[in-house]
């Protein structure tokens, strides 16, 4: 009996240690302790102050662009294949939601229909070619629903990434962006500590700028060094641009041509790729106009460096190996597959793929947040002290069990939220309150049951065992019912409703452990130390 209790006590101790470490870490001094607690307990913006925005990405923009481009590409393609047609025009079905993208091709000679089908199958895999009822010389190109879905999702992801990058560039600490809701292409952007969101709003709604510029000189380790190398004054056609990376731990500064040969507007796409020897690089594609200008510039500057400038920072500056026209490759820069992928992504999403529409905005001033916390803490302490005091009066010795169980429950809840980096919000506190209520209930259920068994004349040990056993079934039923509904709330709810579900689920799981397992161990310990025949303090 003794050793069984010891084993279980050690298990409980390990949980306590893990929880305490989860909250305070390994602090060396008081300041570090405070910092650790701050970084591990994630308070929601409603408690700590900050800005919370819900944005909708108008993903249809992106599909429209693709559709327009396809139309242009098709005109050229048919001309190149000597396939005559009378007219090509967009014919989107806007009565549907989301709209069905269609391109109507009129006046196709019947004998050429098979050729058209071959071209579409070969080059336009995102589209289906269908007949037009009652018009044998016309064909309709219909964007596949699955392709449109992919394009919309891609637009959402790219917009999220672009916004995230821009917000980070502003230096907002701990900003987060994530999907909000289901299927409405909404994003929620959280900016802790920002109480003037107009700057951020302006930034995220602007489209980013990608430029290819010739490197005249550099890199230098500082602005001063770059200027000194040019006698303090730059030539009128040059400008000084900082690199977005460090070299040997130093800043990088480039002297670039002021005029960009090609910009992001000329880009039609970019993707990660590999060179002949398998090293990762990034392939990009330019439109015709851009290709012509790019070809002229690169052809005349072989051996020089070309800077890829994004949002006015040099992203990379590789050597120009040969003339590049419509399809270029950015090499060098010690690409890893990951970084090549990232650069391609950045190039693709350099400009926002779709416009952004703000749907809601909440700014919680830090003074209100601090007030909420102060009041909430006072109210919670008053409530808890009242409950704990009552348990001690009503159940005497056993009240200690209940209070230990309750305190441990809250400790595990806070630590677990830290471990899974869940955020504590006001609705989350509602979940904590229900947890406390059900935690107290579990103890009361068990204790009342033990009292009942004692009244039936059972011996103390048997009464405790029976009390736990009988109450356990009830506790399981109440907890599983509530966790099942919390799971539904989590699966289908958003933001605030999810916060409630998360704290409630963690709290109830912790409660099963503390009020059933921990409390039982304390009882067993008390019973093992008890003199034979003595009464139980309950």
């Amino acid at each position, binding site marked *: 009996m003794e050793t069984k209790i010891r084993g279980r006590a050690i298990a409980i101790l390990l949980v306590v240690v893990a929880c305490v470490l989860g909250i305070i870490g390994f602090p060396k001094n008081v300041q570090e302790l405070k910092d650790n607690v701050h970084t591990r307990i994630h308070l929601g913006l409603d408690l700590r102050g900050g800005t919370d925005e819900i944005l909708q990405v108008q993903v249809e923009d992106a599909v429209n662009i693709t559709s327009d481009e396809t139309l242009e590409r098709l005109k050229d393609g048919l001309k190149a294949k000597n396939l005559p047609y009378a007219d090509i025009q967009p014919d989107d079905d806007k009565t549907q939601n989301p709209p069905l993208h269609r391109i109507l091709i009129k006046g196709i000679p019947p004998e050429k229909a098979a050729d058209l089908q071959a071209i579409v199958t070969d080059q336009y895999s995102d589209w289906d070619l269908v007949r037009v009822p009652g018009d044998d010389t016309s064909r309709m190109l219909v964007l596949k629903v699955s392709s449109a879905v992919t394009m919309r999702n891609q637009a959402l992801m790219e917009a999220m990434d672009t916004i995230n990058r821009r917000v980070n560039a502003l230096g907002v600490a701990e900003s987060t962006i994530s999907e909000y809701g289901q299927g409405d292409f909404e994003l929620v952007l959280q900016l802790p500590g920002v109480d003037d969101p107009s700057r951020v709003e302006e930034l995220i709604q602007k489209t980013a700028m990608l430029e290819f510029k010739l490197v005249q000189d550099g890199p230098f380790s500082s602005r001063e060094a770059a200027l000194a190398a040019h006698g303090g004054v730059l030539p009128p056609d040059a400008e000084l641009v900082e690199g977005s990376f460090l070299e040997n731990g130093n800043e990088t500064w480039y002297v670039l041509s002021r005029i960009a040969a090609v910009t992001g507007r000329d880009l039609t796409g970019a993707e990660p790729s590999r060179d002949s020897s398998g090293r990762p690089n990034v392939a990009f594609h330019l439109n015709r106009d851009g290709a012509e200008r790019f070809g002229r510039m690169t052809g005349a500057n072989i051996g020089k460096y070309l800077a890829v400038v994004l949002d006015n920072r040099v992203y990379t500056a590789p050597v120009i190996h040969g003339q590049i026209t419509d399809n270029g490759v950015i090499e060098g820069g010690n690409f890893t597959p990951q970084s090549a992928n990232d650069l391609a992504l950045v190039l693709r999403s350099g400009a926002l793929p779709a416009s952004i529409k703000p749907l809601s905005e909440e700014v919680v*001033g830090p003074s209100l947040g601090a007030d909420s916390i102060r009041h909430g803490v006072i109210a919670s302490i008053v409530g808890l002290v009242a409950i704990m005091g009552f348990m001690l009066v009503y159940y005497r010795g056993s009240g200690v069990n209940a209070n230990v169980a309750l305190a441990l429950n809250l400790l595990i809840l806070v630590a677990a939220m830290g471990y899974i980096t869940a955020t504590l919000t006001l609705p989350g506190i509602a979940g904590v309150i229900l947890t406390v209520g059900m935690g107290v209930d579990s103890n009361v259920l068990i204790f009342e049951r033990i009292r009942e068994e004692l009244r039936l004349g059972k011996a103390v040990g048997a009464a405790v065992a029976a009390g736990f056993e009988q109450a356990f079934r009830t506790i399981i039923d109440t907890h599983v019912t509530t966790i*099942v509904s919390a799971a*539904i709330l989590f699966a289908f709810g958003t933001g605030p*409703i999810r916060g409630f579900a998360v704290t409630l689920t963690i709290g109830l799981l912790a409660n099963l452990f503390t009020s059933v397992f921990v409390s039982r161990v304390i009882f067993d310990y008390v019973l093992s130390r008890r003199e034979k025949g003595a009464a139980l303090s309950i």
Partner: protein
Amino acid sequence: MEFFHEPKIDWMEIKWYFISLSLALALTGIISMVVHRGLVYGIDFRGGTVVTVKFAQAPNDDAIRSELDRAGLRNYTIQGYGPTSDHAVIIALDLQTTTSANALDTGKQLVVNGLSNLYGKGPEGKSDFNNASPQTVADHLMAEDPLGAGVKGLDTATKTYRDLAEAVVSYRNAPPRSGLLADFKSLSSVPGVTPAVISALTKDFYLSSYAVTNTKIVGPKVGADLRRQALYVTLAGLGAMLIYIWFRFELIYGVAAVVATFHDVIITLGFFSLLNKEITLTVIAALLTLVGYSMNDTIVVFDRIRENVHATKRGDFSKLVDHSINQTLSRTILTSGLTFMAVLSLFLFGGEVIHGFAFCLVVGVIIGTYSSVFIASPIVVYFYQRLTKDGMSSRVKVA
């Protein structure tokens, strides 16, 4: 200590008094909702703009009204927030006709400008310190460079002044100032603030007598989405509970528990309608808490009924239910009493932000406890006594 020693109350004999009371309460609530044309939804669900402002002295509501009228705002309300001594008001605007897609914050800007005209106009060229963000304060400090940090390089200086601005703004936001600084000199107690810093701030800033502590702008789509979602998700949660109870007990127990919970929600919402209180997002969280609490309470009673059914197998089912309720009565009173104490503490000391939340739970805990005895249990009794021949559930699954 013990409150109840084996009570012997015939609950099913007196149920009709309480069922009548429930019907009366529910009916009053529903009539109130009909008269008021639905519930009063907060901005979260309705869409619109809310600006919370704290003033140094008691604000003049009429002056604010005429200023907002002059700005062309319609359909707004001004109401006090928290205790009168806080001098705080909430200005709420309905969705403005001018609120176009890309100008979500038009209403907010008009309110802020109006307040600035009334309470905040400072000397030309100075900024309002009480409505400045840490970033703004840092920018000004950077420009003035009162600590002479500029010589240590740009990054060091930026960090120095950003930290200093954070500290100064935190001091301004902490109680008892709560966002309103009355005198720059009081900043001298903030670590790192030197007389030079104070004079730099005094040079660039003035102190207005109001501070915007909170703004919330909800577009029409988000509001409608949230309202729909709250309803559907709650119904789905109730459905899941019904299925679980069906699986553990029997279908009728699930139905009874859900009806009782539904009863609690209707009556609580009725109270909100009668008292003209707003349904906000935090109230929805409280309603979800109430659903969980009420369900928990009902299951405890059902569990004891199930246990007694297995033990006796015959006899009067309604007496058995009475006995089960009596056996669990002590626990029911204790748990609900303690939970009530906790939510009452929230209601009394929790502050303005969670007032609606705490109110919902204060009502909900009482109703939720009561419905297990007087709504859920009678439904099960009625079902077995009237609708089945044996009058006793003999098919309750063994747990």
